[in-house]
């Protein structure tokens, strides 16, 4: 999996992320200093930045399925290795939650990404970060 997490790479989100549709390009920042977190830093001075984490580190049983349309958007073959990230939200009181319902999925081969909008996900939008 190490090659999926090269220190600095640009990912294109053809549809952007809901609410941030203007930002299509994000730099993926992963390093020992940031671990276990990854940064998704939008390209440009006013661009948004997100802290993300491998959903398996939040819920070891985490699993989610991609449809054929999702794979087409990622330009990914059915068994292609993909990078999954869940966005972390930090509340003013210091608590942090993880959005397991709408994960970011990145195809390292095409460097394309999507945010998975799933109608019937069993996972929450605000899963506690601390809970295993």
């Amino acid at each position, binding site marked *: *999996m*190490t090659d999926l*997490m090269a220190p600095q790479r640009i990912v294109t989100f*053809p*549809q952007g*992320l*809901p*609410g*941030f549709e203007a930002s299509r390009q994000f730099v993926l920042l*992963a*390093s*020992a200093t*940031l*671990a*276990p*977190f990854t*940064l998704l*830093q939008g390209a440009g001075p*006013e661009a*948004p*930045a*997100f*802290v993300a984490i*491998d959903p*398996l*580190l939040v819920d070891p049983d985490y699993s989610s399925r991609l449809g*054929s*349309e999702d794979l*087409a*958007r990622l330009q990914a073959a059915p068994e292609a290795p993909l990078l999954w990230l869940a*966005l*972390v*939200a*930090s509340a003013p009181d*210091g608590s*942090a939650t993880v*959005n397991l*319902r*709408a994960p970011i999925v990145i195809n390292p081969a095409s460097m394309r990404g999507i*945010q998975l*909008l799933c*109608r019937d996900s069993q996972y929450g*939008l*605000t899963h506690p*970060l*601390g809970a295993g």
Partner: protein
Amino acid sequence: MLVFTRKLDQAIVVGDGVEIRIMRIGRDSVRIGVTAAPEVPVHRLEIYEEIRVANALAVAAPGQAHELVSRLQTQRTALTPPHED
């Protein structure tokens, strides 16, 4: 807003061939079929809205992302790093 009256099995076309067709008309709901190219995302509005709100809460304050990571790391010291660098 454009408003159309459509009957069962009639459709409208939006943009580059996105077809929206009335599939079934029930008492308090209608079933709609959307035909679009795979790269065109189609979502129920309430789901898109839900994720839009979640993303707005997750976005880091400008220039604060690294600081946020440091704070989160101290909260999660028990966690084993997933990837070897």
